């Protein structure tokens, strides 16, 4: 279980949120909503350990994530604003590298299937793909990251067409059904059966 207690975040001298307490249990999908600049990205970065909160703490199964370090990282999939794919590498190479970095064991066939599911050509350098296809290449990680119980996704539906958005919704739903937890940010209702909405 992921727990956030009394979280406070200040960026550039401006307080984004304070006294934010919530928990995310297995099988829950939590949506982080709010206007631009309200701190959605900062909250997700705090939850994954990239950003240190001004006050408060995040715990994973009772232990502070700062003390768990890589042990916590193995349980988390974080997809930020940037697609985290290298232009020079192909979709398949990018996915393989991402999985190894995350400590996920995947086969070449699983990598190919994940990319095919999102309609991303696995053998083309990413620089030759459109923005939407790059986003799909990044989201293909969802198909091979079932081993990571916590998914933290920053605006996962941005730049996606209807089919890719539907596939993403399906994958998020499947992950929750498997007992995983999903925390994602979005400006509008993405049509998911959210367990809870955190309004910033």
């Amino acid at each position, binding site marked *: 279980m992921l727990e956030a207690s009394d979280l406070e975040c200040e960026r550039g001298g401006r307080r984004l949120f304070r006294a934010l307490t919530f928990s995310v249990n297995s099988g829950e999908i939590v949506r982080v909503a709010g206007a631009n600049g309200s701190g959605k990205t900062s909250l997700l970065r705090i939850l994954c350990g*990239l950003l240190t909160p001004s006050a408060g703490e995040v715990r994973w199964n009772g232990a502070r994530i700062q003390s768990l370090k890589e042990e916590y990282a193995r349980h988390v999939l974080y997809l930020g604003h940037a697609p985290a794919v*290298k232009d020079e590498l192909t979709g398949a190479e990018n996915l393989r590298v991402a999985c190894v*970095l995350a400590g996920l064991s995947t086969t070449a066939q699983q990598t190919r299937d994940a990319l095919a599911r999102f309609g991303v050509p696995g053998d083309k350098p990413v620089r030759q793909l459109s923005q939407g296809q790059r986003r799909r290449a990044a989201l293909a990680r969802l198909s091979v990251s079932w081993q990571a119980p916590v998914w933290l996704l920053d605006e996962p539906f941005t730049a996606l067409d209807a089919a890719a958005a539907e596939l993403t919704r399906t994958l998020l739903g499947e992950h929750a059904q498997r007992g995983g937890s999903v925390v994602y940010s979005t400006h509008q209702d993405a049509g998911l059966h959210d367990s809870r909405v955190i309004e910033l």
Partner: protein
Amino acid sequence: MVVWRELLVAMRRRSDVATALLFFVIVASLFPLGIGAEPNKLRAIAPGVIWVSALLSSMLSLGRLFAADHADGTLEQMVLGAAPLGVTAAAKAFAHWLVSGLPLVAIAPLVALQYDLDAGLYGVLALSLLLGTPVLSLIGGIGAALTLGVRGGGVLLALLVLPLYVPVLVMGAGSVEMASAGLGGQGQLLILGAMLIVAAAFAPWATAAALRISSE
């Protein structure tokens, strides 16, 4: 895997690798043209000039060490990776050395031909670069991580890193000078080796700490 990825990216962006190597060759070749063809003078300045050229060439490619990963978001994935960040930083520094340091080691004896260096000194020069250039990559990694995302980071990087490069430069160039004076350069080479061990042991962890600060 990080090393494999870095080499793959470098192979597909050959111009970046060639730029640093060409810079080394051009800078080292300009001195004989500017100073004149006086063999004794050229022999005397050769170790220092070649080492300074190697140092500047290595620094030229430092800016890209983490900048591209920072821009495309892959750095976040490394920071959140399953492997300790220090190990990833060490792999990045090793890949940087393979791409920008090792070619200098290979080409330095050819460049040294212009300085009429004794044939027996080519080995000492190459060995000093072989021991010294990884230290440049390791120390440079700390500077590159600290200046990540900072406006005017290139100048700041040079200000941060160049003073730390001085001992490597002194020992590297000194080993060739001592060998050319017939005193043997083993002492300097051993110190360079010690510097490499210390840098390999500590620099990746300092780089990791700097990367964590920069990714906040």
